[in-house]
């Protein structure tokens, strides 16, 4: 943001033109170019940016992987990927302009001199495509080869222009490894050059959370322990592990979703207003929340693993029957926890959070449940009829916000019924919502790390996960403990029932 102001001050013709900043010329090198993420998300995102005029003329994309292939094959595969997965209609002219700067380098960064083919291509592109030595390295690679890759990139970084590194999750597997990785990265790159990506933060509705809270005068005064009874955050997936047994057996729900997406949603929900929307201000406030969360007691954390069941009418296997999963696996596919954000705003206001695979439906929501009306003067027909207000933020799908409130049902008696007041994002803003990766890649190209995770955030998140995982080591769970197609184990319901509460009805 500051850059725009400075540029505009120097160039009076830029005033009023700052709505759309076009990034500087650069080369984006994607490590893991033969992987699914590149085909399904990254190249379609770059195509959408090009189609909407967000990319500079001088841009090049280099796919880097061990798999032997050629420039022509890479272009052909990526074209098919854009046609299949792109959210924009395919336009030959846009594609041709993008593929003109597209190269593929088959190399192994763990081998001696493995970096040389890439270095040569990047230098050549600087000459032929005018990319000025500006480079983004997108690391979509397994943790095992991060280190040699980072070292080689760091040692052969461009002498002119800027360098930025996007690092995909998993960012470590515990606090110690995350710290180690941070140390490795900062040996070769400045923190301002490191972009740890959590694609949830690129979602429009997650960003809208900040607008909802800090752009509307009515919510912030009631967004605290005095008015809020508790908060529920749900990240439910109806899918199983989709062939990712190798990864999932090691990670489990706590490292796959809880450590990053769930804790980021807690931070965005609980944070104090930042003084401005610069990256440091926003991330400072998020870190304060993460530091305020104290380790939940063992009884406040529930883990689960799905057994066979039915999802959308289809019979699905249990986790232990999935291909590649150990038949006596103790990996959790579900986590629920009661968190305490110990600060002035949220003292004694629990945050109940949960995530699971093979849930009845895909749903990410944040529910702010307010305290009940203190003294309703009506004689009501059912004690349960007068429910507390709930502000429900739908992150996905059906992005939007709804407020549940009580209304009198027509008729002579005083019958009260809960009703919804809905704001549906897609119904108010008909332009298609950009994919999270579009926003995040563009932000990185523009040098804006606001929506990326900082080193201290990651370490705080892992600190919490480590504490939970340490307690888990002391006992052997009885798995499976919930059927596929249900909202998790009975113990998760008990977690709230003990407090006289329940998960909200879906």
């Amino acid at each position: 943001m500051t850059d725009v102001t400075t540029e505009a001050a120097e160039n009076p013709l830029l005033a009023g033109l700052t709505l759309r900043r076009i990034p500087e010329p650069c080369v984006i090198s994607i490590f893991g170019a033969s992987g699914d993420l590149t085909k399904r998300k990254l190249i379609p995102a770059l195509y959408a940016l090009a189609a909407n005029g967000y990319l500079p003329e001088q841009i090049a994309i280099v796919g880097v992987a061990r798999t032997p292939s050629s420039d022509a094959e890479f272009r052909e595969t990526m074209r098919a990927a854009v046609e299949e997965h792109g959210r924009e209609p395919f336009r030959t002219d846009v594609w041709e302009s993008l593929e003109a700067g597209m190269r593929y380098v088959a190399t192994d960064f763990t081998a001696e001199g493995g970096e040389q083919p890439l270095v040569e291509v990047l230098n050549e592109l600087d000459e032929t495509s005018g990319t000025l030595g500006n480079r983004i390295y997108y690391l979509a690679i397994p943790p095992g080869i991060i280190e040699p890759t980072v070292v080689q990139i760091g040692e052969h970084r461009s002498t002119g222009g800027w360098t930025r590194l996007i690092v995909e999750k998993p960012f470590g597997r515990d606090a110690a490894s995350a710290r180690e990785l941070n140390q490795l990265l900062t040996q070769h790159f400045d923190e301002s050059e490191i972009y740890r990506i959590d694609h949830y933060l690129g979602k429009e509705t997650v960003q809208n959370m900040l607008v909802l809270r800090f752009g509307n005068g009515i919510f912030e005064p009631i967004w605290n322990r005095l008015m809020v009874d508790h908060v529920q955050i749900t990240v439910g997936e109806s899918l199983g592990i989709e062939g990712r047994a190798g990864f999932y057996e090691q990670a489990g729900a706590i490292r796959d979703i809880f450590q990053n997406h769930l804790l980021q949603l807690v931070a965005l929900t609980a944070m104090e207003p930042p003084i401005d929307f610069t990256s440091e201000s926003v991330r400072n406030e998020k870190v304060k929340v993460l530091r305020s969360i104290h380790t939940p007691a063992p009884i406040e954390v529930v883990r689960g693993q799905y057994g066979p069941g039915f999802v959308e009418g289809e019979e699905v296997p249990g986790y232990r029957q999935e291909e590649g999963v150990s038949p006596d696996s103790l990996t959790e596919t579900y986590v629920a926890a009661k968190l305490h954000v110990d600060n002035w705003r949220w003292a004694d206001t629990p945050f109940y959070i949960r995530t699971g695979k093979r849930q009845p439906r895909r749903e990410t929501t944040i529910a702010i449940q307010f305290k009940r009306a203190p003294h309703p003067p009506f004689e009501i027909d059912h004690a349960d009829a007068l429910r507390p207000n709930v502000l429900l933020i739908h992150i996905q799908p059906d992005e939007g916000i709804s407020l549940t409130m009580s209304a009198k049902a027509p008729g002579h008696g005083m019958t009260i019924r809960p009703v919804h007041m809905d704001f549906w994002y897609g119904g108010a803003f008909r332009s298609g919502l950009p994919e999270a990766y579009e926003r995040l890649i563009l932000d990185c190209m523009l040098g804006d790390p606001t929506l990326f995770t900082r080193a201290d955030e990651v370490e705080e998140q892992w600190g919490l996960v480590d504490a939970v995982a340490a307690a888990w080591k002391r006992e052997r769970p009885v798995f499976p403990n919930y059927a596929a197609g249900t909202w998790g184990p009975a113990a998760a319901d008990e977690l709230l029932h003990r407090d006289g509460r329940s998960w909200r009805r879906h």
Partner: protein
Amino acid sequence: MIENATIRAIESELSRLDSDGMEPGECARRTRVLTHVAWVPRRWEEAALAVLGGLGDRHPSRTIVLFPDPEEQRDALDAEVSVERFGYGRGEPAIASEVICIWLRGPRAKAPASVVQPLLVSDLPAFLRWRGELEPGSPELDQLVAVVDRLVVDGGEWDDPAATYGRLGELFERVAISDIAWSRLLPWRRAVARLWPDIAEAQRLEVGGPEAEALLLCGWLRGRLGHEVALHREDREQLERVEVDGLAARPVGAEPLSPVELLSAELELFGRDRIYEEAVRSLP
């Protein structure tokens, strides 16, 4: 068509259409974000309706299209009311967009604001798209400007852009203004801005394009650079060439926007565009 319509009859028809074809308990989502008023003299009917046809899907709104017909003998309003529903993807509920077309017959054409005001959606921004010639000071324009937040015009629709721009400044203190001709210039302004600082002392602007765009571009440069810039123009239907002191500006990126996209973009703007106002005030 509701002949001799009243506001009450229009509202009743809207209510009926809102629930028409729905099962009991079911309704299309009626999130509204604005009221869009369009003033459409007969000459512009076809073009206006073509653009409106593409807008409903982008901006869930209430659109009120006013067709002035002052020559008509009758002193009456005729109206057509429709509710368009747009699905936003497989399995998702439709959203509804309301379109109210009103023909202002005879003397009614002189009091358009009194027709529009009771139909504005409360507490949401109201935009007025004024089609064709703009006459600052005319009673119809004055009335409508007083009840909307933003006036959207297109200098390219005017017979004498220099003269009309000369009077446009009268409105700046009363309403925020969008000019679609100015929007069409956006990629060109970006391209010219990229010529900085080589054009800091520019003296000459050459444009191959329509008069409105050429004037605005020149006014913009004069206003921003703070000195005189001479304009040399070759008439073209669309903006094709811009050179500043012999340096060519080359827009990059997406295809030029369609009329629907241009108007749609204007309906997302709020507040005054001070750079535009400066450009208009600095016209050669």
